[in-house]
């Protein structure tokens, strides 16, 4: 039946509408010629419908397919991988339109459409994208309704109303499934869209890299604290350490990749918080020092950074407990400490000389560090995102000539000087600060919060963190990058429309904060609702928890929801016989067993008279029931089921027992 030829006009219209809606979110990553392809295909199909054009023949179809494949190869360079595959899917979705002769073809198109919607989620999974996707889904369902052989489907709006109704009615059940359906790990690994995780820290740092990052307002992660949020100045989010210096660039040392947790001891009060991390494409996680996480979130590496086995390629939620006052590697000679003293063989002679001078002046490490910080504080250093280019001896040039730079410059220079003075030190890269969302009690850390600072090691005391940038531009630490850059308009000046630029507008800021809040919830409760998160929630709800119980709850609640919906849809009370009638039916059945059957056209009173004649011994009971029924049904007497029941049971006990006749 579904293969009958011909697709109704309304269904075709809705299919075209649905196609547009399905394709729109893909436009961001689709090559432009796909739009032309769709327009061409849609135009052609409409002309076919108007009998002005014919279906493409085999050659034309083959040619189109080759053309599309060539186009994908040209614009994507490959035919494999998610990106190319999604283009291919959309192209198929588009070209199938031309081939659509029968209802069955239309069904294929509709199912393809659902797939395209799912694919779009892999590229964009924001709250708006999710809400938007309801439109194409409804349109596709509308087209499906329009394919039915009904006069109903010949009008444009009723199918839409019906499809919308179906979607709305499906929502409660969908939520139930979403919460309770068990999540499992990926069955096999799949390629991810490659335009993700472009901005962010990398495992090597040239000063300019962080300047680059500071232009991006993209979200890096959100952290929500269970207790009060610590002051900004203490929020140093460690990502990784950079221990190797080649004279120009700081990078990760091989030793930092040893997955052996260094020795440390807890001290002071811990901080508990959750982090929802945006995909970074890298394996490391962010935490305040010194973080502790569950075993399956990641492992602590040798440099106190936390790392996962696989790169973070989708939003990730993890829980951290941090001990800010912990003592780290206080033992005599921790393994790998020599790496923290590595310097290039030559270069930057003035800095080395200054270090030697300092070393002579301050034999104590702490004093030396304090002196360097003092130096940054006292000398006319300038915090800027647009430093002058540095010469070949970059540290010398920075320390003694330009004296203009930002965190990476200061951290790099200080580490260099400390190492030259014989103090083990390294650059820590991460983020500093973040924006507090007061209503949500969480902090949003953006790419422009990227930061670099220094930590140095002393025997017996372990690693200590210091921030030279704080000496130069304390407002960067206490208030954020924007404050630090008030004189120069370098803050997001290439993003004139970023709402972050207009924080001084209170209402706009309010709006932005609420929106961020919503997004945070979305990230945390919807996108991040995977295995562990689900288990935790369900454990919270049900205390102890097993899958059997879960299945029971799922089935039970599902049945309840469907039952409620069925009640609303079928309105059984509208056709349910009223109690009087039910009682009368029982009365009839009872008398029928004694061979007195009511004719269709016989009223209660005449039937009772006849029955009383046939069963004279029970005449009184028969008449009592009939009178009671008549009173309730016709005389407007109070409707009392009990009175009828009693009359009936009196009659039943008066009659000899008989099962059937």
């Amino acid at each position, binding site marked *: *039946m*579904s293969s009958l030829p011909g697709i109704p006009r309304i269904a075709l219209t809705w299919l075209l509408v649905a196609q547009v809606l399905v394709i729109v979110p893909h436009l961001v990553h689709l090559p432009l010629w796909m739009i032309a392809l769709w327009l061409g295909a849609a135009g052609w199909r409409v002309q076919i419908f108007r009998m002005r054009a014919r279906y493409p023949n085999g050659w034309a179809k083959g040619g189109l397919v080759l053309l599309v494949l060539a186009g994908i190869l040209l614009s994507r360079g490959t035919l494999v991988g998610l990106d190319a595959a999604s283009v291919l899917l959309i192209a198929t979705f588009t070209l199938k339109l031309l081939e659509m002769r029968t209802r069955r073809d239309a069904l294929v198109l509709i*199912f393809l459409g659902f797939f395209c*919607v799912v694919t779009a989620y892999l590229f964009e999974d924001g709250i708006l994208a999710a809400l938007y996707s309801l439109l194409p889904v409804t349109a596709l369902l509308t087209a499906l309704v329009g394919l039915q052989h009904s006069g*109903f489907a010949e009008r444009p709006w009723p199918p839409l109303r019906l499809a919308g109704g179906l979607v709305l009615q499906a929502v409660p059940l969908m939520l139930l499934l979403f919460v309770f359906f068990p999540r499992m790990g990926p069955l096999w690994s799949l390629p991810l869209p490659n335009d993700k995780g472009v901005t962010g820290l990398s495992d090597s740092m040239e000063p300019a890299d962080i300047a680059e990052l500071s232009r991006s307002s993209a979200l890096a992660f959100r952290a929500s604290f269970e207790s009060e949020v610590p002051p900004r100045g203490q929020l140093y989010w460690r990502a990784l350490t950079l221990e190797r210096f080649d004279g120009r660039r700081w990078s990760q040392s091989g030793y930092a990749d040893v997955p052996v947790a260094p020795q440390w001891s807890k001290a002071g009060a811990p901080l508990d918080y959750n982090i929802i991390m945006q995909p970074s494409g890298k394996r490391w996680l962010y935490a305040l020092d010194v973080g502790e996480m569950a075993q399956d979130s990641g492992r602590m590496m040798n440099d106190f950074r936390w790392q996962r086995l696989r790169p973070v390629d989708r939003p990730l939620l993890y829980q951290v407990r941090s001990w800010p006052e912990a003592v780290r590697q206080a033992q005599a000679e921790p393994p790998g400490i020599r790496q923290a003293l590595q310097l290039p063989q030559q270069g930057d002679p003035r800095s080395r000389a200054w270090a030697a001078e300092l070393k002579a002046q301050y034999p104590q490490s702490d004093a030396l560090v304090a002196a360097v910080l003092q130096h940054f504080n006292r000398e006319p250093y300038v915090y800027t995102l647009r430093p002058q280019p540095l010469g070949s001896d970059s540290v010398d040039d920075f320390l003694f000539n330009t004296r203009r730079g930002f965190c990476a410059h200061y951290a790099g220079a200080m580490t260099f000087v400390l190492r030259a003075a014989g103090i083990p030190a390294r650059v820590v890269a991460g983020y500093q600060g973040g924006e507090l969302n007061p209503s949500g009690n969480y902090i949003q850390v953006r790419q422009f919060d990227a930061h670099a600072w220094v930590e140095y090691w002393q025997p017996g005391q372990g690693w200590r963190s210091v921030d030279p940038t704080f000496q130069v531009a304390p407002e960067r630490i206490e208030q954020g990058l924007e404050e630090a850059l008030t004189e120069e308009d370098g803050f997001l000046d290439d993003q004139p429309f970023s709402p972050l630029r207009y924080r001084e507008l209170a209402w706009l800021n309010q709006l932005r904060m609420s929106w961020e809040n919503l997004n945070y919830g979305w990230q945390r409760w919807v996108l991040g609702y995977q295995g562990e998160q689900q288990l935790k929630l369900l454990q919270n709800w049900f205390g102890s928890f097993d899958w059997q119980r879960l299945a029971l709850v799922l089935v039970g609640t599902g049945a309840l929801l*469907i039952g409620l919906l069925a009640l609303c849809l*079928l309105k059984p009370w509208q056709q349910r016989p009223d109690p009087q009638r039910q009682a009368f039916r029982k009365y009839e059945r009872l008398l029928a067993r004694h061979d007195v059957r009511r004719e269709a056209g016989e009223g209660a009173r005449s039937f009772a008279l006849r029955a009383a004649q046939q069963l004279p011994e029970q005449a009184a009971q028969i008449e009592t029931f009939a009178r009671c029924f008549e009173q309730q049904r016709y005389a407007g007497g109070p409707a009392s089921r009990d009175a009828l029941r009693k009359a009936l049971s009196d009659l039943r006990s008066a009659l000899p027992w008989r099962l059937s006749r």
Partner: protein
Amino acid sequence: MRAALKPLWRRWLAKRIPPAASVRLNQRRIFILPSRVGAVFAVALLLMLLVGINYQNSLAYGLTFLLVSVFVVTILHTYRNLAGLVLKAGGGGAVFVGEHARFRVRLESPERERQAVALGWPPSDLVVRDVPRQGQTEVDLSQPAVRRGWLRPERLRVESRFPLGLLVAWSWVDLDQAVLVYPRPLEGELPLSAGLGDEEEEGMRARGQGADDFQGLREYQPGDSKRRLDWKAYSRGQGLLVKDFAMLSGRDLWLDFDSLGGDSEQRLSLLCHWVLQFTERQQAFGLQLPGQVIAPDYGEGHRDACLRALALFGARA
């Protein structure tokens, strides 16, 4: 296997949905399962779920669950489209072998509007109709009349795939309909046997309408043969008049089964042809079948009685 189960299935159905001229579909009588499209849809959903699992994408999960829920909700809608529908048997006229017997079925919807309700006898195509809210629709179904006698169709399939075509709800109803099938008229020579037994040439008396003798003119009444209109009188402005012929009795025509050759079906077909011919000519005739005699008469009632006898000849003792 299938063939062995069929009688069992029929008996079960007859118990569950007893034959009646009016059947109201309810939960005891409606069956519902995913259609082939629904199965494909399920496969598509499975693939979408796999995307959700492998990419750990909550939204892909969400859409999959939404569509699963739509599927579940559609069960209710598809069921609702049939539930409460009343099917009533309408009359169907008798037909000749070789024609299509028509069965009229009336669909009544006491409550809501119903879309795309399909009726018919698979494997032939089903007829699809909408039923308006608190209204009714009549559907004419046809089945080829292959053999003479009563044509009782199989149970009628009522189905609905509305709204999405993913599920099919159906029922098999027996509206207790039957159409009488007359033998196929067969042209041929007829050895006439006039009268039964002894034949006395008594005075002939004019007896009703016939084709024998002109009796006069009378006013036209609806139903009179157009061939007998007196057009001349009409052109003179005397109104529509009909030439009235009388048939003479005593020369009654008898159609006799035994006097014919050929097998019995051929004989019945021939008789059928002549029954129609004589009625057309408004000639009285009698019909003689083994074990049954219909006295000479004329008119449509007589024709129907004769045809009925021919149709049911040998069917029941």
